């Protein structure tokens, strides 16, 4: 199946996932078009993180279908490298390589995985580090940076692989309040450049500002979704209303 830009870049159809006997996802479907920014919100344990981890095959699923640019993720013969070239991911705990400098962290995957020319990669890596506003930190080790700075390096590291879709798994949840903004600004810049972004977030103000569509998940299903204006001001489902009233 060849994928065209008119079709959803990421498409989930009736996805079921369980850990042992615990059903985490119970029939999730959603479509993301190229260049769209979607935010997934919901109480903890509702399956948000599992949902986006399934998109780049960090978790496998029991049934249903996930496609990224037409590539079926739920396939035993999946070419994982092909998938991971398309999808970048940023984690809550940054997960930078502590024994490598900022520049090395950003350069490693393009050199080792894509086998690209070192000089070209370095040039691009420096540009990406500048883009996430960390010029001058190229030689620093992750342990010497603040959480917000580390998270921006993690974003640059992911972008170095030239992904078409970026997944953000609660990327500001472990940060100090004053550094949250710098990371959100970086994501906002990315979205403005047309990157397809799927975010799991607790930052409602940010979701409202940036998202094209907001999804509310609870107990493994998508309860409600819609553009932020209608979603936040005019939620229909009582569970959504209750959740929003607790946090807004």
């Amino acid at each position: 199946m060849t994928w065209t830009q008119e079709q959803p870049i990421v498409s989930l159809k009736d996805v079921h996932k369980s850990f042992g006997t615990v059903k985490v996802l119970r029939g999730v479907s959603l479509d993301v078009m190229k260049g769209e920014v979607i935010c997934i919100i919901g109480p903890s344990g509702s399956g948000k993180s599992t949902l986006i981890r399934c998109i780049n095959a960090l978790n496998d699923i029991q049934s249903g279908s996930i496609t990224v640019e037409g590539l079926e993720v739920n396939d035993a013969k999946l070419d994982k490298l092909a998938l991971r070239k398309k999808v970048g991911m940023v984690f809550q705990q940054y997960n930078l390589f502590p024994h490598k400098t900022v520049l090395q962290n950003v350069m490693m995957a393009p050199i080792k995985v894509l086998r690209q020319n070192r000089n070209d990669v370095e040039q691009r890596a420096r540009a990406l580090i500048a883009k996430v506003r960390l010029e001058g930190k190229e030689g620093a080790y992750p342990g010497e940076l603040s959480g917000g700075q580390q998270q921006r390096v993690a974003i640059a590291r992911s972008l170095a692989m030239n992904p078409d879709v970026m997944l953000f798994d609660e990327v500001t949840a472990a940060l100090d309040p004053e550094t949250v903004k710098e990371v959100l600004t970086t994501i906002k810049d990315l979205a403005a450049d047309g990157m397809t972004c799927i975010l799991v977030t607790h930052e409602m103000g940010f979701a409202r500002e940036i998202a094209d569509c907001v999804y509310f998940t609870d107990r493994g299903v998508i309860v409600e979704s819609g553009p932020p204006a209608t979603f936040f001001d005019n939620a229909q489902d009582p569970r959504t209303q209750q959740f929003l009233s607790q946090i807004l």
Partner: protein
Amino acid sequence: MAVLHPMRIRADALPLAERMFNLWTLAALMLAFAAVLIAPAFAQGSAPARRGVIEILLEWTPTLAGGFGFNVLISILSMAIGTVLGVLLGVLQVSPLRPVRSIAWLVTQFFRNSPWLVLLFYCILLIPFQIEIFGTTIPFPGWIKAIIGLSLPVMAYMSEYMRGAILSIPTGQWESAESLGFTRSQIMTNVILPQTVKRVLPSWMNLYAVLTMATPLVSIIGVSDVMTLTRAALSAEGRVDLLIPMYLYILSWFFIYCYPISAVTRLLERKYSVNT
């Protein structure tokens, strides 16, 4: 590995200078101890025909030092072989393939729970004294067999250290590397193994000190190490009053060689247990 030992840290919370001072204090204490033991020998040795104990020790020093050098050589080579094999075995112990994991586990447990001396005897008996490959004869003298024999337990201990260190690396490291497209073996060599170095280093150095102290075992299987030479020297001199001073002399060499290693090991342990 990086477990905090509150009591230990207190004891270790001495600056390096003080720790070195401790070393010298201990060395001085040992010398004093030696003097006490040697003194009666001087009293006996006052007859003109009998040479002094110290004189005899000094005479034998070059020979014994050669033997000690051999012990050091055996320890270094065993350590090198054991480390390489141990790292490989440790990596196999966390293989996603169950049969591989089980075999690596079995090999590790077997050699980790065998007496070193029995392993040495086994190597002496099992390995032929020479091997012929395409007409070329490769000899296997006793000391090479000894090195192989001693490297087996080193391999097993190293395998366990590596398994522990690999499992102690947060899973986030695997996941982030995986989502960047790295294969499992790329993650192992580029991300995980480099991070295990500092976790394993203190245990590795400690293992080396233990191995060095175990090298006199090779004298039992006929390798001319410091123990063999000491015994030869003692029988050549044929003097009972030499026994204790001479063994104490050799003991002090091992102490002087091994103590700094364990001191630095404890220093490293303290450093890495505080900021992992």
